């Protein structure tokens, strides 16, 4: 699970304990493959398409989706990483430090940008990401791909490409990695 998620969830300073496995590695692979096809279908190919993974949890998924796109279409889209810490709306409410570098070595002007994250929850990270993308140019469209949509949105944001819809309670945590998706809790 993303480090920022763990640090922000009570009991603070605890560790994630997995309770239920909800996706096996091969299911994740199939979901990535399907999402890649959906991205190509929606955008009529890969022309002017860029993939941006959110640090840190979305980066592996962005890489996997880009590789799948490459395998299907025979062309690798540009892949970037984005850390949204400086654009969050809770700066000053809690300790917030960026975790990993932002690297977008290509222009986003006129591109179709697919933002990729591991888990979609309140939508606040995505709002920050939309704000951050503005600093890099004006994409012709922005789409959202997530491995898990766990509900509980606090903002009018919805994903375009979803690996799995997963109903959860607010006190549960979802850990989505390449080697499996688990539901669990933070325990001390």
């Amino acid at each position, binding site marked *: 699970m993303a480090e920022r998620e763990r640090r922000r969830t009570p009991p603070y300073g605890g560790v994630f304990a997995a309770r239920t496995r909800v996706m096996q590695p091969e299911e994740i692979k199939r979901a990535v493959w399907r999402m890649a096809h959906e991205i190509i279908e929606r955008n009529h190919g890969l022309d002017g398409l860029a993939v941006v993974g959110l640090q840190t949890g979305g980066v592996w998924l962005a890489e996997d989706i880009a590789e799948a796109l490459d395998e299907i279409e025979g062309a690798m889209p540009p892949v970037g990483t984005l850390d949204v*810490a400086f654009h969050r709306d809770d700066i000053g*409410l*809690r300790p917030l430090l960026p975790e990993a570098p*932002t690297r977008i070595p290509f222009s986003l002007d006129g591109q179709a940008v697919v933002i990729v994250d591991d888990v979609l929850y309140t939508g606040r990270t995505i709002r920050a990401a939309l704000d*951050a993308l503005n600093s890099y140019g004006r994409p012709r469209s922005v789409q959202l791909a997530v491995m898990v949509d766990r509900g509980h949105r606090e903002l009018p944001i919805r994903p375009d490409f979803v690996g799995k819809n997963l109903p959860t309670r607010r006190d549960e945590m979802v850990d989505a990695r390449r080697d499996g998706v688990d539901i669990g809790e933070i325990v001390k």
Partner: protein
Amino acid sequence: MRHLLSVDDLGAEGIEEVCRLADHFTEVSQRPIPKVPALRGKTVAMMFCEDSTRTRLSFEMAARRLSADVMGFSVSSSSVNKGESIRDTVDTLSAMGPDAIVVRHRSAGVPQQTAAWTDASVINAGDGWHEHPTQALLDCYTIRQRLGTAAGRRILIVGDVKHSRVARSCVTAFTALGAKVTLAAPPTLLPPAVETWPVDVSFSLDAVLGDCDVVYGLRMQSERQAEALVPSLREYTAQWGLTAARADHLPPGALVMHPGPVNRGVEIASEVLDGPNATLVEQVRHGVAVRMAVLYLLLGADSGQIPPGETP
């Protein structure tokens, strides 16, 4: 951390944290729109009671790139000239409710005193001969960018150490990071208790020049000649200047640093300043990113505890 008054407030870990954050702000500065909303709604007041161009501009630019509002104040246009005391100036500034006050003053200790008088975070932007912590931080960041790490590096600080707040902050910062610092200066320009500093001292620049990774030149102020601390600037340059001939004796790749403003041809020869190993322009550029990091640490990242029971 609420204030940045001295490099000691940070320690090695704090310096590393500032450098890590500065990496992120360097990236921000390279974006087509180099501005983030991180400190929206915060106000940074500049209390500059001594002439300064680069430090002040650097802090202002850092604050603006973080979307903070900047309240300017400088001695020439302020009531300090009308005889207002520092206490009253600080009270007046504080009454306007800034979140941070950046203080530059010709007397040592003014930032410490200011911190006791205000609720705002106080950042020392240079006080007398005492400290200039953000300069030391941007120098550490520059060394880190160029040489990977400051640990184990041999850093030679040349010139007027006695009257230099930069030298004091740099010695503290460099040694905290594990660098080995040597001071090279005439005895008249060394501070009285230099033997208590964690440094080596040399009275000959030529003797130590071949054995360093960084040469850090300090500004030679012409008033020192009037005080008879050096016979003349020309003699100073002959003995202590980094001339082109001396630069040839530096190990290959050794950095030439200077906090600015530089007297071309006095501390460092013009051709050395324009050479590939001189980092003066980089130091200024890194200054903005490092000051963004300091402002963000004081006003953003560290300012709040997690409220109990809040959802992520």
